[in-house]
């Protein structure tokens, strides 16, 4: 456990000792700010029945942050270590492969959560100026964060897997981005096929991240969405572990 915590601390610190982490957070903050500025203009010109959490998630910026930030956060996790040659050193220390994978994933998740924390600030700035405090519901904010966390888990584990596959950070980021955007675009495929498509339709509906997030933004927690994200996160972490272990027999 101590080794796991040490590794996690080391990974997390690596984001903040260079400019990388700050640039990622600043970029995400700029996009968040941009989306809220769009909302400001929209809400001033015409009232809306949708609460702020729902409005924010439905802007393209939310998904842009998610799809762009995840590969950038995760690309260096394994690829940089392999490229710089520290990976073998790390793997010869008395820590298990599982601990390494979990520590890197945890650090990436913690950084991801830190990145999203300023969202609370943006929300409370807007709350100050709304006509009805009900525009911000504590329950809805909580579930929106849960949704962001679950989505982040999936995207971070996907990024870990992509980073473990290659020595190049760019390739890792590209794999992660391509896979992430494919998952995201599946959300829109459900509408394109016929209702009579049966189980295919049900499968596609189950994969619709856009709708999952809509529920979270409305203050609804559906166990189906939770199962979906947690199970896929575990699967990608399992794949990452297998890739990390592969150095023993390659």
């Amino acid at each position, binding site marked *: 456990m101590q080794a796991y915590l040490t590794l996690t601390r080391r990974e997390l610190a690596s984001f*903040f000792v260079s400019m990388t982490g700050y640039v990622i957070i600043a970029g995400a903050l700029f996009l968040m700010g941009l989306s809220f500025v769009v909302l400001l203009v929209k809400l001033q010109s015409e009232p*809306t029945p*949708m609460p702020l959490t729902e409005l924010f998630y439905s802007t393209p910026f939310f998904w842009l942050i998610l799809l762009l930030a995840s590969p950038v956060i995760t690309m260096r996790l394994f690829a940089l270590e392999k490229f710089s040659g520290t990976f073998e050193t790390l793997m010869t220390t008395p820590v298990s492969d599982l601990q390494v994978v979990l520590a890197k994933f945890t650090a990436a998740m913690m950084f991801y959560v830190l990145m999203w924390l300023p969202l609370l600030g943006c929300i409370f700035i807007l709350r100050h100026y709304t*006509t009805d405090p009900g*525009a911000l519901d504590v329950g809805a904010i*909580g579930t929106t964060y849960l949704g962001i966390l679950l989505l982040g888990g999936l995207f971070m584990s996907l990024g870990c897997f992509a980073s473990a596959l290659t020595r190049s950070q760019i390739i890792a980021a590209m794999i992660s981005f391509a896979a992430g955007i494919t998952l995201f675009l599946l959300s829109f495929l459900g509408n394109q096929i016929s209702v009579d498509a049966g189980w295919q339709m049900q499968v596609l509906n189950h994969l619709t991240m856009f709708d999952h997030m809509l529920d979270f933004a409305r203050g609804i927690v*559906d166990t189906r969405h939770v199962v979906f994200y947690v199970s896929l996160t575990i699967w990608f972490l399992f794949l990452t572990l297998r890739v990390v272990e*592969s150095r023993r027999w390659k």
Partner: protein
Amino acid sequence: MANDTSTKPSFSAGRKWTIGFNVVVASLAVLALVVMVNYLGVRHYWRFQFSDRGQMKLSPQTVNVLRSLTNEVAVTVFFDAQGEEELYSLVSSLLKEYNYLNPAISIKTVDPMRQPGKAQLVLAEHKLTNPKDKNFIIFYCAGHQRIVYQNELSDYDLQAVISGKSKEFKRIGFTGEMLFTAAIFNVANPRTYKAYFLQGHREHNPELTGEPHGYAKFAALLKEENNIQPERFSLQGTNEVPMDCQLLIIAGPRIPLSDSELERIENYLKQGGRLFALLNNMALGKRSGLEKILAKWGVDVADNMVFDPKNSPTGSDLLTARLSDQHPVVKSLVPDALRIRLILPRAVGRLETGVPKVDAPKVDLLAATSEGGTEATEIRGGVPYLNPYRGQQATNFPLIVAVEQGGIKNVTDHGTTRMVVVGDSLCLDNEIIDSVPGNYYFASQAVNWLLERPQILLSGLGPRPLKEYKLIMTDSQRQSVQWLLLAGMPGAVLLLGGLVWLRRRR
């Protein structure tokens, strides 16, 4: 030495292949587990609501209807999702709740603006040649379909527009749940009603398709969209109004009804009957006789022809200038400014008797002309004659009324008596019924109100009130917030990063 280790791999090719195969099998096994867990998760799930708003919580009535549903119901949301973003969002999220509660309800979205080809296919599939509105929702189950139009889905604050406080109709309520639940119930439980068209007095014939004054299109509307089986019948001889008659339609009789026929109709109405009476000026001078019965129910049918020059596209017709914003038959036409087209109608209004009785039927005025309405009471040479010596004072003439009376003593057969009386019968004939969308829609709403269908099912289920959120900021406040969000917060983080970088550099 180093060369030796690089040429001799730690594992033989066979061993590597075996390990690789094991990894693939293990990965697939975990994937299978993931699929199974998700499969079980979809079948057994819970939804927890953590928001106080509870906007999408379904009412117990809806939950009961959906839980009892065993047939597949296909819902097609035919909507311009970007043009009507707010309403579309309400519709789609509500329907998703329906789908979550019962997967037998499948939902498909078609955006006619962005998917014109697909939209045409849907229109052809559901035989919708002239939909009343561009946005609507189709509920389809085993050959039965119901359509809910966009303008039915909202309650508006009409007072604000009338009083001049606002130029736009403000949406204050969303009626989706009551309409969708009713539609699903009706298509899944297609109880067929029977409507009888009285014949024998040169009324409009519901079986005539080619003839412009036939009522075949109206009959098709009853049958295909409202599960009402139209039948013709006669009161000649000793025939009574059939026992299974749930709606009596008397459409434009030109020959007067005999006293015995009128008596039988009156008996039917007294027993809680439902009557859709469409009178016309072709019986002018030789009254149909229905006027006497209607007067007993508080309806006054004048012997005249009403004109409204300001609202008359062809001169002999008129478009209703005023519609009730309270009555369920016509209130949903108001926000879209839909009007009913009538041809040389008779004035049909409330009979003023002086002292109102406590148990008198409730007569609601549904439609009227503008203040510029005029009338003619004579026909000379086949055309209405406006007597120049008789002072013609322009006023608004009533044209359509709805009558309702509940709690009739010793009568429990059908419940309350309901009637809709229209001063014109040509408005629903094959030529006119879909010439303007208002007529077709009025006909559908009128028969549904007469049969009391949505009300029975959804008593107590009203529209959801809609809250609106708006930002109130001055320009300087907005600019400050914009600077803070776009420059202040990201800049502060970059500054912190820069300081850390500088410190580490030293």
